[in-house]
């Protein structure tokens, strides 16, 4: 009769799973291995090889963020001490991690590859100020956290290898399909 047969089968399955190794681990004592491309809701701003800040204060990331968590104050263009050319700088760069939706768009649009996400997903804090990253914390994250794989150029390369190094056109240009 259906009852006995099904009952024994059910017992068999639960017994089989009883004898399997558990598929959970005791977090946080044991951490799971994350994928190569893992991205977490935290950011770092990078310096270039001269030690200068890469961020030129173009505000593309502030514009593109769907949650509007980035706030940048840009300075007027001034001469760079390393290359001698005039370039922009960001005076103030604030990211409010509380509303980040981890969409990676700010990474993608950055023309200078200045902003990246990190692989460290545990960013607890005791107050809301701990979750708002100011410029010094962002630049410190470059050394303090493990960085994720992607940069603006990397993502561009992945999405369209032939046109990977194209500079962004001025605002208002027409969109041309491939």
């Amino acid at each position, binding site marked *: 009769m259906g009852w006995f047969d099904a009952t024994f089968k*059910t017992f068999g399955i639960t017994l089989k*799973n009883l004898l399997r190794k*558990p598929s959970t681990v*005791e977090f946080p004592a044991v951490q799971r291995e994350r994928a190569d491309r893992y991205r977490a809701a935290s950011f770092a701003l990078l310096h270039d090889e001269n030690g200068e800040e890469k961020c030129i204060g173009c505000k593309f990331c502030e514009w593109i963020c769907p949650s509007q968590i980035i706030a940048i104050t840009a300075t007027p263009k001034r001469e760079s001490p390393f290359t001698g050319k005039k370039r922009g700088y960001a005076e103030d760069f604030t990211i409010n991690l509380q509303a980040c939706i981890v969409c990676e768009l700010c990474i993608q649009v950055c023309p200078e590859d200045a902003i990246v996400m990190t692989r460290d997903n545990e960013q607890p804090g005791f107050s809301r100020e701990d979750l708002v990253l100011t410029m010094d914390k962002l630049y410190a994250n470059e050394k303090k956290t493990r960085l994720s794989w992607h940069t603006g150029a990397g993502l561009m390369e992945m999405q369209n290898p032939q046109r990977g190094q194209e500079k962004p056109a001025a605002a208002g240009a027409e969109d041309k399909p491939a």
Partner: protein
Amino acid sequence: MSELMLNPWIRALFWGLVMITGVMTVTAWSTWFERKFAGRMQSRMGPTLVGPLGLLQPIADACKLLQKEDLVPDSADRALFNLAPILTVGFALGVAAVVPFTPTMLAADLDVGVLWLLALSGLMVFPTWMGSWASNNKYSLISAMRAVAQGISYEIPMVLAIMVPVIMTGTLSLSDMVADQQKNGWIIYRLPLTGFLAFVIFFLAGLAEANRIPFDIPEAESELVAGPTTEYTGMKFGLFYMAEYIHTLLSSAICAAVFFGGWDGPIAPGLHWMLLKSVILFVFLTWVRWSFLRLRSDQLMNICWKYAVPATLALIPVTAFYTVYAAGKGGV
């Protein structure tokens, strides 16, 4: 010391304390076992943090429940609300008085042990109902209706099923029943083999009385939050929760005593056999709980009235005829 024990009041107090302490301790660690077992069966670890292998988890649970805010809803009936968990646990523990662990380790060697335990199991329906009525909560009301219907319906197969061993052994006293099984073989395999069917029905009825899956519709979390105990917090909820486990454990102990021979065993009869059999039955109960889905209220009433009651009603005359016939021919 032995003069003191001759005094019935002192003896009652002593055994009461021993039984209550023993049963509560075993219950507490049975929750640990259940969580560990359920965890492993679901491909995850159970409690691991508190103590080695999570063995101190019941203590952590007790502390957690004790420090919770004790809420009594404004529109609730205070007296009944506070009384219900106490009565539930009281009745559940009362059953422990007649469970024959060994011939000497028995709190109350009643001549009508079976009647005592059936009466207390039946009484447990009242505090469930009381708790939910006093809560003044629609979810509790629906759960309690289901629980009461289930509880009083499944008493009938329970009573009738336990008549089979009573008839076979000829006594209502639990310790005499076990002694008889030691002499004449366990009920479960005694002719005319109605003992096995009686065991299955008694076991299922015990599950239904304790509101365990597959009969746990009164406390169906996915529908009615927590059933009759929705409004209870803290240790009052802890008492309800414990009462369910106590009832389950003692059901398995009673089944072990009445159907499987209690302290009897092939070598060296004693307490260890009783405990082993109870534990095996409890493990089986836990296994059933974590493997099956629950039956709907009217479906489980169907099973009771259309299948369990007629089956037990059929078992009794068969057992009676066989017992008298075999006695007439010189057996038993």
